[in-house]
């Protein structure tokens, strides 16, 4: 019997970046045209396939592909509402980042290797999103580590290597913990498909110790990538990677993989009730809250743009964990919608930081004085991202914070509101000075080094078009996601759909 196209589509989504990636490895350095064609072809194909899948899910089709792997645990790729949200996010942002990276790395050495691993990295992320059970998730989680490492050390400098070693030490350690947790759960319950409401509820009474240990192992392992304290130190160090890598790492691939894993584990493996019964959500809540505050405080101390953005990620990603740990439906909506919103805003910010660095060699916050006159469009995008992070309406970030706050009220964790307010103030304290300097401070006589990319004048030619357009595109998305939040096509509507399914059981 030939497999149905609905079975093959999830595989095709993964392969649409994997195959171009492997082909790119074989290319020589100077085959720029072919490489670009492969890159963009893969991007477009993936967008097309994801669009098809979204349409299919809205028509009530189910997409599931399974291969036998180990007894009791198949390799399953499936498109449910939650995975599609993440897949759509990664594909769209991958498209933007690919274009950006082509412009960013123009003329740099070892581009075939870079784009090869870049595509592998996205394939692993998409596979992780589509993973239908814990074993498959584990597989892609580890592959993601392997695919990102060469990107982190891409520059090959001693500093990059140090960061790369640290990245590996943390993420492989985390991967080993996830492996342990997954093996423990596999022994107790096998590895059935992710189920809304979890599949461990019948086991809670007899296996409290085992389930608690498994939860601790999984959260610790996933917390490494999600940069929960005290496992976050690799993230700021990994900033030595090229800007598109940082952007992808922070907005989609690595950090989000951890956060997405936590969502999966809490909702689709354990289920809300068992987590509450085992009293596991409060420690998680405290951890997330501490990370939010700590990340913001550290961000305040940074002098470099990318470093500040990195610590801001530490803080912002924990909003997702926070929302999950609230264990209420409204908090869940906040968490899921923030998964998308944070991605859109953070990638914009990193693109902007990359544009400043590439065009004017501006790396430090001090050097941003008056940059809005030289690069108004980039600075505008930066402002959208920064205000969004602070939670200013109508940008996307406001929606997530609003729902997180309501979620905290719903489940009666009033102190969480305090955390949200404090974090919002801290966000303002570290983002507003940057915005102020950019627009209102007098520009210096000379920029550190004006490379004259694009045309050298403010406006549409302020930098290379491949750097500028993706930035504007993601900024526009971040804005639209907030403005159109109440319509049916927004991330919010989709998150509400997911949560309705999770909590109906």
């Amino acid at each position: 019997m030939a497999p149905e196209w609905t079975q093959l589509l999830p595989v095709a989504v993964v392969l649409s970046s994997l195959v171009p990636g492997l082909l790119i490895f074989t290319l020589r350095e100077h085959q720029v045209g072919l490489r670009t064609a492969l890159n963009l072809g893969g991007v477009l194909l993936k967008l097309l396939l994801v669009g098809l899948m979204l349409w299919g899910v809205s028509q009530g089709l189910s997409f599931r592909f399974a291969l036998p792997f180990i007894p009791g645990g198949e390799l399953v790729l499936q498109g449910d509402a939650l995975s599609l949200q993440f897949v759509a996010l990664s594909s769209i942002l991958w498209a933007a980042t690919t274009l950006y990276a082509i412009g960013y790395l123009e003329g740099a050495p070892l581009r075939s290797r870079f784009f090869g691993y870049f595509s592998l990295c996205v394939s692993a992320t998409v596979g992780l999103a589509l993973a239908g059970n814990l074993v498959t998730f584990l597989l892609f989680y580890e592959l993601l580590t392997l695919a990102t490492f060469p990107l982190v050390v891409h520059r090959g400098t001693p500093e990059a290597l140090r960061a790369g070693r640290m990245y590996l030490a943390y993420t492989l350690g985390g991967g080993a913990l996830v492996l342990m947790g997954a093996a423990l759960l596999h022994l107790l319950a096998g590895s059935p498909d992710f189920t809304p409401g979890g599949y461990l509820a019948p086991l809670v009474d007899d296996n409290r110790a085992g389930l608690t240990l498994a939860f601790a192992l999984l959260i610790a392992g996933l917390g490494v990538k999600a940069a929960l304290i005290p496992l976050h130190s690799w993230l700021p160090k990994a900033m030595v990677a090229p800007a598109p890598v940082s952007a992808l790492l922070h907005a989609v691939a690595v950090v989000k993989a951890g956060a997405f894993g936590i969502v999966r584990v809490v909702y689709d493996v354990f289920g809300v009730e068992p987590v509450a019964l085992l009293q596991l959500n409060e420690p998680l809540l405290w951890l997330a809250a501490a990370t939010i505050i700590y990340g913001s405080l550290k961000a305040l101390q940074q002098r470099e743009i990318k470093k500040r953005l990195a610590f801001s990620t530490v803080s912002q990603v924990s909003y997702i964990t926070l929302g999950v740990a609230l264990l209420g439906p409204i908090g869940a909506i906040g968490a899921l919608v923030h998964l998308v919103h944070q991605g859109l805003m953070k990638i914009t910010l990193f693109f902007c930081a990359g544009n400043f660095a590439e065009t004017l060699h501006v790396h430090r916050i001090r050097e941003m004085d008056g940059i809005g006159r030289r690069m108004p469009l980039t600075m505008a995008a930066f402002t959208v991202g920064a205000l969004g992070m602070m939670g200013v309406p109508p940008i996307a970030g406001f929606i997530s914070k609003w729902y997180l706050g309501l979620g905290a009220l719903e489940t009666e964790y009033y102190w969480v509101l305090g955390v949200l307010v404090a974090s919002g103030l801290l966000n303002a304290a570290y983002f507003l000075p940057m915005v102020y300097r950019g627009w209102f401070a007098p520009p210096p006589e000379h920029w550190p080094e004006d490379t004259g990319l694009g045309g050298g004048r403010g406006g549409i030619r302020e930098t290379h078009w491949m750097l500028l357009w993706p930035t504007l595109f993601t900024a526009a998305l971040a804005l639209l996601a907030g403005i159109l939040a109440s319509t049916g096509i927004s991330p919010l509507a989709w998150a509400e759909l997911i949560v309705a399914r999770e909590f109906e059981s």
Partner: protein
Amino acid sequence: MTLALMSLLLPLASALVLLVLRARSPVLMILATLGSLIAAAGALYQVVDGGEQLLALGGWEPPLGIRFRLTPLSGLLLVFTALIHLLVAFYAAASRHSQTRHTDYWPLSGLLHASLVALWLSNDLFNWYVTLELLGLVAVALVTLAGPKAYRAAMRYLILSLVASLFYLLGVALLYGRYGVLDVALLASLTEADATTHTALLLMTLGLMLKAALWPLHLWLPPAHAGAPTAVSALLSALVVKGPLFILWLIWSEIAPPALARDMGFIMALAGVAALLSGGWSAMRTPYIKTLVAYSTVAQLGYALMALGLLLYWELPELHVALWLFVLSHGLAKVSMFLAAGEMQATLGSKRISALTGATQTMPVAMFAFAVAGGSLIGLPPSGGFLAKWLLLQPLFAEPANWFWAFAVLLGTLASAVYVFRVVALAFDRAKPTRPDFDPHVLAQWLALIPALLVWGMALVSQPLILWLTGVTH
């Protein structure tokens, strides 16, 4: 059964022909290995289809004659041995740096292949003594191919190997004196828990552990394996240490009285943990690339020993599968790792790990092979190493009292990640890459990569393989 015998005789005959003709041609040996592989595959097919087969050599029945027994597992090991020999032979013939082209490697590797096949097919204690002795002698001869600087390590290896055989032989003598049979199946029905049996089993175990380089009797392995020519290192690590392990597994799971097996299992499992940690630690510290790979063998054998010990200790048949998957996946991964390491060492002109700086640019394929094989050693999904580790972990989580063992596996995993990635991370250093002394040889690098791809390819057949192994090992 004739097919299994063909699988033994083809490499043996070709080795003898090469010796007599004083020819050192790779072609004949590669053809013989290929033939042996096909015959082994046929034998495996027969035994899976038609069940176990017995063959009395020359029509002489036991106890005086030699009787071979082909079980599904030994059939699988025949295929595995021939496959590894074939992969290594291609490399040994192709690589400019293998120190093996047109040397005695060719007849000796044929002899090694034949002794291993004889070991897998044998089923009585004395035959194993002979095959072990053959294996040891051929292995030492292969190590000496590296030239005078390897003589010292080879000598040490030889003496230890002889002593180990004598431990084993004394044990065999005691057992035979006590029960009057050598056949494993017969012995299994006779053994009682008395002092003679215990002493005999302990002597044999010491000998076998020494031969298999199981902790704490592993100290001879790193110099011998690291000093040998690259192709030989690969064979030694992938196959030769597995022979004594096979015997150890059979005598403890078949012959030994259950109470003693339980106690011994506990000790073995502890020794396995110690091997994991001490081997991993040494691999993290050593400045030499091939020594690192050799110590990783010590550590990885710790998993196998742990699986063996725990299956005896808890009487868990599932762990048989974990044990044999470790053997298969470690064999393939280690071949790849040694070939890649040796090729890089020879091309870059230094034995030191620091010479691998920037190797992702100068020798990308070899470095990739090293990393991919290393991924299987770490146990990254979906490689063969992951499957084995997963099966080993399952029973360890069954009760909180067993979590200690799971913790040991975790530590072992982390240690392996450190020693693999200390090399890989260095290879990404673009600042001061080591200039190769020779043009990197692309074909040899790809040949090093193939076994690593195979071990990851095990994922494609993992479920049938696991189910089948579960059926045949118990």
